[in-house]
């Protein structure tokens, strides 16, 4: 019987290698494999599905641009999530400078759904998460999502955001406490 099992990292290494060789199929596979994680992070951070899609778009285009010099040492998922967080942060900063962000922090993400077969759906849990996240400062959202969703250590988060580990931890703690209050309050309602 044919076997198709590899360690996850091995599969990613092969995908990256094939992307370096210019394989469109491999690029599509990377996208299909991680789009959900990336999009979820971007939606949770940015509250807007269409901007989140743009972020994921930018991440993949940038991945192609950098793939030649890219060496996969850890996980491809972690790398792409970090790129997504960085890109989302830049978008948020740009929007902040333009004065179009945080106008109403209680707004949840803009959700849309098309035909069932061609779904663009944020499920109820994501809508709930995003609504709660929207009430946190951006920096706290980012640390919470990277730690809980991307399973990144505080050390890694600190390095990627160029902050101290203690700052990362305190952002996480403050954010988490606030998130608990919001969700508890929501549950009491």
């Amino acid at each position: 019987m044919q076997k198709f099992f590899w360690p996850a990292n091995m599969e990613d290494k092969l995908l990256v290698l094939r992307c370096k060789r210019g394989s469109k199929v491999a690029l599509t596979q990377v996208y299909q494999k991680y789009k959900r994680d990336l999009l979820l992070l971007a939606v949770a951070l940015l509250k807007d599905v269409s901007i989140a899609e743009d972020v994921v778009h930018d991440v993949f285009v940038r991945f192609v641009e950098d793939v030649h010099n890219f060496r996969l040492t850890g996980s491809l998922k972690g790398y792409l999530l970090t790129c997504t967080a960085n890109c989302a942060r830049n978008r948020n900063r740009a929007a902040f400078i333009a004065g179009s962000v945080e106008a109403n922090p209680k707004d949840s993400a803009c959700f849309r759904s098309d035909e069932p077969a061609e779904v663009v759906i944020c499920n109820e849990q994501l809508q709930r998460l995003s609504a709660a996240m929207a009430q946190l400062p951006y920096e706290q959202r980012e640390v919470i999502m990277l730690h809980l969703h991307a399973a990144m250590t505080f050390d890694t988060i600190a390095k990627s955001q160029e902050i101290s580990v203690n700052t990362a931890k305190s952002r996480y703690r403050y954010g988490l406490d606030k998130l608990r209050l919001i969700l508890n309050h929501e549950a009491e309602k």
Partner: protein
Amino acid sequence: MIPEEKLKTLINQSQVLTSSQTDERIIADAVDRMEELIPQCSSGAGRNLWRIIMKSPIVKLAAAAVIIIAAALGIHYIVSPGITFADVVQPILDAKTAVLDIIVGQDENGPVIHDMVMGSRIRRTMSNAPDVVSIIDLETGRILVLTASSRDAVYIDLKSLPSIPNYLDTIKNLITKLQESPDFSVEELGEQDIAGQKLIGFHATNPKLDVTIWADPRTALPVRIEQIEGQLKVICRNVHFDVPMDQSLFSMEVPEGYKLQQTALDLMGSTEQDFIEGLRIRAQALGDGTFPEGVAVEDYLKEAPAIGKKIGELGLSEKEQSELGMKLAKHLLFIRFFKGEGKWHYQGRGVKLGYANMPIFWYRPKDSQTYRVIYGDLRVEDVVPENLPELALPEEKTDKGVGYQQWSKSEFVGNQEDLWRITASGQIEILSDVTIRKGPQGIATMSITLPYSSGTVQSVTVANGPVPFAQKDGGQYQLQLPLEKLLAGHTNIRCRWTLSLDQLEKADYGYQVTLQSLIPVVSYKLTVALTPDCGLEFSKDPSRKQWVPFTGNSLGSPGTRFGSCGIEVRKCN
């Protein structure tokens, strides 16, 4: 206070799905950027390895050997004129020795053609005709067929064929042809563990051909070649190069004690009339009055020993046997080098010769708006597409989408459409087409459960390629899905399984059927069809050949159980 774990759960349960338009936009932009930055991407390192593989003598040899399979069956590849027979066999002439197994069709457990190749000669045996050995001499254009049991030796002269100038289309190396095509493209399949061997795959296509080559990544020598041309699939496996062999195995001398016959093999083109004549022979002389199970080359290969035996029993003279063999070869040629548009369809299995109302074969000739339909009495009619026989099986969906959504859950979810055909033997032949919408990340095993534990899975395919499967418990199977194909967009899984009609619950109105999908689905559709000779008809409208008794969506989350429904059938009057 909500604990951290619950927040984690909330995040894990969060789902976002993208539209196909979004996927296409992102992938297209990323691919465009890739092409800008790596213009040589299609001829990068992978292509280099492809080239190394293609230059390897074994590929040329194996590809040519695949072509030569058919020589003994009266088959040839058709390419543009002007290329000589010698061009085709040159790769084999160049090679020193090789050993390979050839399988025609999808069934890897079917008959195996075993070839030993030394220089210009091939020693060929078939697993289902162990006492027959063919020695093919490509240099002189002759085949020596030795039958050990009857001590018969037959020379088949191939060389006489090109004596008709510009008529016989000759053969050229298939892969060279493929590479020369302007539409040629090659896609890397990466490294995979196939039958315990780590191999690197390449999928090369042009609009007419489809070749997948699996090679040893260390030596770049191919060990497996899968070729699809029209409705024919040929697998070349266990390829070994430069295997020491005794030259006496390739002798064209008739061994002592063998009785020599001489014949010529006419490889000239075949017509519809040749095909029909073959159908008549197979039904009348070889099939006890009924048409054969199948008319594909692989069906013929499977039946070849039985056909040979039957011809022997007919008490024909040698000349008559030879003529009959020639007619069967021409019959086979029509299918092997099918020149019509799209696919041909055969539905004559078990149908009695002379049954005038039963269409048994139909195809659309090149540039024709109508189909040629051959009926059970072997008359032929031109039929417009909307009047084609209703029981045509749906063609397997091979269109590529953007793949399926990978999610954190461990199960696959999709849509399913079933076609249940009730046949004369009391069997129900079921085609379950499952289209995957969501599935776990990086997991290639999928469990399926048949609605009836006594059902038996016959085959599983994805994009016409076989999918390995193993039975776990009654009605439960585990599939090893080709993840690469699925992720590349071939998300339709076709499962063929059978069930005895007796297993259905009988009711006053006919039968009650359990509606259950193979995997959790969001929609399920059941179509029931009756073959003309099954002895049943739909009670409400006997003129109908098929009926859709159920179509529905699962409410809320995907599910497998959709209750049951009645099939209103009665015995034909």
